[in-house]
């Protein structure tokens, strides 16, 4: 993709956030360009899901700014934020389908709430989106009757039902077998190509990230250590990046004195 000529649709600047006294994000800067697939990677607890929640406007930051489609969301009022979200689709890690509704009703919900379409048109649109996701004929099923992969695809169908400009996908491969995971990767690429979406995917699956990403951002302990193309990430000399790519456990220096204190119980007194 010709990334240099693309307009920036998401701009995160010096984002800092705390949970209590713990710093979760530490001066994060990130630009996502129009029509690209940006994959945010990092180990558990690195802050990638927190970053996603901030970009979605679900959490408030300690400092910094987040601009989405030209709107500064850290200072935007609720009305503006809700309007902006109509241009965004989000597929959550667990699907977040409503258990009391059928799959069809779940996918139809944004249309019912935001449009004046008649029942028949809504049904056709739902069927179309479900077919794109290889879920034809499941409209009447309840979410509890679907497999893990089907739940994720149904969530994706709901996320794209309004044809959003931006699509966010949290951990698409988590808990799925490699075949289903690969199918989801194909779907993400298809959505970008067919619907001209900008897609942000949060994952820790290397194979999936390399397959779908135009660019990858790697987070470590709340800081972005690199944002680059797949090829440059592969060739990076950064230790953290190489540790992640080669699945090497992190080497921590052992403080022998503190360790002995812990063993003898001195630190507890």
């Amino acid at each position: 993709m010709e990334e240099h000529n693309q307009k920036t649709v998401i701009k995160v600047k010096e984002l800092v956030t705390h949970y209590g006294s713990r710093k979760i994000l530490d001066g994060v800067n990130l630009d996502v360009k129009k029509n690209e697939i940006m994959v945010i990677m990092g180990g558990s607890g690195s802050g990638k899901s927190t970053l996603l929640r901030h970009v979605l406007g679900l959490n408030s930051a300690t400092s910094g700014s987040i601009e989405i489609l030209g709107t500064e969301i850290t200072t935007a009022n609720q009305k503006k934020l809700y309007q902006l979200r109509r241009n965004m689709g989000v597929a959550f890690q667990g699907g977040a389908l409503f258990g009391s509704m059928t799959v069809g009703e779940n996918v139809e919900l944004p249309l019912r709430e935001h449009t004046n379409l008649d029942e028949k048109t809504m049904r056709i649109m739902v069927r179309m989106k479900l077919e794109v996701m290889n879920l034809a004929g499941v409209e009447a099923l309840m979410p509890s009757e679907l497999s893990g992969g089907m739940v994720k695809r149904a969530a994706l169908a709901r996320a794209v039902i309004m044809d959003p400009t931006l699509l966010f996908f949290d951990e698409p491969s988590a808990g799925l077998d490699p075949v289903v995971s690969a199918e989801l990767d194909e779907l993400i690429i298809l959505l970008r190509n067919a619907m001209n979406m900008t897609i942000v995917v949060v994952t820790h699956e290397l194979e999936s990230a390399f397959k779908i990403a135009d660019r990858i951002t790697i987070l470590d302990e709340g800081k972005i250590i690199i944002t680059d193309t797949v090829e440059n990430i592969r060739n990076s000399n950064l230790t953290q990046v190489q540790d992640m790519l080669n699945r090497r456990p992190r080497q921590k220096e052992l403080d022998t004195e503190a360790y002995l204190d812990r063993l003898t119980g001195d630190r507890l007194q």
Partner: protein
Amino acid sequence: MRNFVEKTGRETIYYVEHAGMMTIFLCSCLIRIFTRPFQLRAIIKQLHFIGAKSVFIIIVAGSFTGMVLGLQGYYVLQRFGSLDMIGSAVALSLIRELGPVLAALMVVGRAGSAICAEIGIMRTTEQIDALECMGIHPYKYLMVPKFIAAIISLPLLTCLFDVMGILGGYFAAVVLFGVNEGSYFQGMYSSVVWADIEMGLIKSFVFGLIIVWVATAKGFFLHLDRSGAFGAEGVSRITTKAVVLSSVAILGSDYLISAILL
């Protein structure tokens, strides 16, 4: 000493913050009752869940409460030779106090706990986040139908409770103990005035509001709960808290309303 002061300060700040958050939540939900779109389908669904599904338990509880009142009333009033007062004793106790309070406590146990657990699970499984990300306000979509359904259902359930209680009292006093049927109903006619019914209805309206407010707010703010428990444990904790808090709030507000209206 310093620890004690620090702890007291922390607790005070927590409770003040919590009360403020709950109050803002209530006001936001109440304001949204009057804004479009009106979720008729969701309101009917909630009326069915909170109201219609509570009918059986209200009939059973109301009947037994009335029977106990009839039984106790018979033995007490017999000592004073005032058996003709039994109808008014049963009716007034039910309409002014027991009907609204017991009906509300039944609804807390049946619907309040379920509402709290439902919203709590929606919070833990990111369904509430999903709603927000779809540009759908969770207060409007999830809470408002429950608020409307509860403040419509509670007065109706209370009326049903009162009627069943009066019939239960009739069964105990008239059918079992042979109190004169005419004096049972005549006492009721002569002693119950509109102000008594009005008091019962005001109470049931307020109790309906309390039940749904506490249940929805506790579930909605599950992630901010001080215990830090999330998931299944968090849901079970906040459900227990919601039931206890609603029950205590019902009894406390019952006294307040009685004191104001008497």
